[in-house]
């Protein structure tokens, strides 16, 4: 049995394609079963988010499963295959395992390290188990994937740093004020930039929003949106005295806030710290304001610089995460292959044992006068011969199982000795107990 991943993501397909292939939540169950009932497919799971549509499957043969799954995608969504075939990736075994691990660890995400994907993949897996389309192989694969995601989260700091200007602003505010709760933000300017930044702060816990603008009406309108308070532009000092965080984004061609004014305000508010964010270009706040004690001034470039540091940091962490993924892929593949070798060995032994028993019985029935001792030595002799014969090939097979090139040998043995009609059944049986233990983790 082979693992197959077929799908497309934000890198391989434009939004127009992704949205047409996305699965609706209400018909996911049906879709899972439709895919599961394809002749070459034994287990299925569907991951459908705004950035990716992917089918994970366990198939008898990848060569047959690929076209079947492609056709299923096309017919299910009523989209001709040639419109999206070039956007698809069809991954088998090693590539498939690596892909699933990377997706779960958020290494394949648009923003590496973003945490939502793990929840989405868990939900997709739960639906597949509920619907009964998942099976031993996918169970094992997904449990390993969750384990990999956990390792990446705890062993690297990939998701620890903010990588957008707004998030950096919130993070900085937390470093200065501890928490945003009960804090007041003053928006200077009522433009879109101010609104956006304020929205992030408010969702971060800011309590009160003050808005000031040259045109009072626009300040009032924006203030209303945040249940805040408009302040006439002439009384900006009043606002500054009350605010913990100031976001300035006006079209002014010269500095609105100067060193002297901010220093004066800080004295008046007994040095209560103030965090000024200047996102206007040209700047609204004189850079020297940053030299005032308890005033922290960040402009657009400063924020961007922090973002860049964090991105660089993330990339470094991503490399470490990739190493973890590679390590886990090797482990998984090793497990998967050993599954195939073990039943082969068992079947081979059983086959030889059967022949031995049959032949021994024939001989013994021809010589009923044999004593118990003679019978026992015949038993021992035949057993020893079989063990000796099997020793070398089995050692080799077990060893190859670890090297990961056992497929050829297994295939040859299965054919040479006509070992079993359906080896996959044994694989499935073997996989079950391990999965039970994984689930209870």
């Amino acid at each position, binding site marked *: 049995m082979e693992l197959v991943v077929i799908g497309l993501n934000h890198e391989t397909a434009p939004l127009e394609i992704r949205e047409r292939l996305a699965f609706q939540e209400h018909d996911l169950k049906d879709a899972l079963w439709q895919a599961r009932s394809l002749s070459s497919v034994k287990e299925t799971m569907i991951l459908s988010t705004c950035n990716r549509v992917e089918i994970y499957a366990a198939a008898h043969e990848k060569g047959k499963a690929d076209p079947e799954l492609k056709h299923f995608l096309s017919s299910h969504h009523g989209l001709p295959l040639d419109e999206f075939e070039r956007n698809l990736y069809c991954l088998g075994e090693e590539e498939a395992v690596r892909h699933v691990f990377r997706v779960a660890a958020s290494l394949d995400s648009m923003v590496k390290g973003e945490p939502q994907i793990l929840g989405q993949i868990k939900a997709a897996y739960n639906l597949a188990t509920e619907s009964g389309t998942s099976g031993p192989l996918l169970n094992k694969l997904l449990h390993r994937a969750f384990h990999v995601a956990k390792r990446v989260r705890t062993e690297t700091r990939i998701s620890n740093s903010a990588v957008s200007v707004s998030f950096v602003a919130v993070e900085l505010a937390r470093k200065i004020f*501890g928490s945003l709760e009960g804090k007041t933000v003053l928006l200077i300017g009522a433009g879109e930039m101010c609104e956006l930044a304020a929205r992030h702060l408010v969702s971060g816990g800011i309590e009160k929003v003050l808005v000031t603008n040259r045109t009072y009406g626009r300040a009032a309108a924006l203030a209303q949106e945040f249940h805040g308070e408009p302040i006439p532009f002439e009384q900006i000092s009043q606002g500054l005295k009350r605010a913990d965080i100031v976001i300035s984004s006006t079209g002014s061609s010269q500095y609105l806030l100067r060193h002297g004014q901010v220093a004066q305000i800080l004295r008046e508010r*007994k040095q209560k710290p103030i965090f000024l964010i200047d996102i206007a270009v040209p700047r609204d706040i004189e850079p020297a304001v940053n030299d005032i004690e308890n005033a*922290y001034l960040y402009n657009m470039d400063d924020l961007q610089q922090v973002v860049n540091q964090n991105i660089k940091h993330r990339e470094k962490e991503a490399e470490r995460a990739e190493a973890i993924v590679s390590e886990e892929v090797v482990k998984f593949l090793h497990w998967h292959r050993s599954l195939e070798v073990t039943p082969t060995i068992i079947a081979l032994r059983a086959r030889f044992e059967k022949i031995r028993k049959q032949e021994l019985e024939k001989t013994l029935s021809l010589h009923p006068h044999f004593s118990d001792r003679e019978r026992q030595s015949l038993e021992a002799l035949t057993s020893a011969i079989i063990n000796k014969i099997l020793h070398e090939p089995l050692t080799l097979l077990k060893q190859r199982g670890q090297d990961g090139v056992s497929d050829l040998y297994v295939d040859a043995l299965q054919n040479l000795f006509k070992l079993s009609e359906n080896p996959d059944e044994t694989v499935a049986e073997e996989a079950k107990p391990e999965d039970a233990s994984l689930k209870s983790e």
Partner: protein
Amino acid sequence: MDVLFFKLAALFYFLGTLAYLTYIVFLKKAFSKGALLVVSLGFASHTAALLTRYAKAGYLPVTNLYESLSFFAWMIVGLLLIGHLKYQIQVLGAFLAPIALIFMLSALALPKEILPLAPVLKSFWHPFHVLFAFMGNAVFALAFCCGVMYLIQEHQVKTKKLGAITARLPSLKVLDDLNYRCLTLGFPLLTLGIITGAIWAEYAWGRYWGWDPKETWSLITWFLFAAQLHQRLTVGWRGRKAAIMAIAGFLAVLFTFLGVNLLLPGLHSYAKW
């Protein structure tokens, strides 16, 4: 017996220091948990050392430099545990544990015999004087750590370098708040320490105040903290200035405690060794 407990405590503090420093490097929860456990064991052992010595000597064991250092370290570790458990500031350990360890190691090098109590120390007021003074000192040690962390963190934020260090330190607000809390707690303790000391001096030497170096320096220290408190309440000396004052204040505390004993001759010099 007490010295054995003391050595055991020093060993635990050493391990705890290592664990806290490892924690601050790797930021793995397991290390801070381990550090907390080890330091708690050390604290228990240290407490046992103090109690057994108290039982054996029959007086509060803070009569010579070995005992004082040990007592000082014990107080600091107590504050560390409070900071870790109550305020959840785990990195505090990486600063306080080494300070406690240094005091422990210095104490190890000093004579540890239990001697008959010097007549001048046989006073109802002496234990109170020492208790208040050292409680104040330990609180100021905590303020000192907060001050150092504040200056580092503030520098990072001001210069826009939000790297590995920023992630490891608490927010400016938390550090400044804790500094202020230490000030409001430490200052009354120091004041009480000086007052009880003066009363004791009246019994021991027949005068409340005699401008002995220890007395002079404790007064200087007192003025430093008084000034800090005053400025904070009136013109809002907080943040950076408060951090610098906390550091200066603790250095004055250290000099009053150790420098005066070791460098300047005076009535307190019985406590030299």
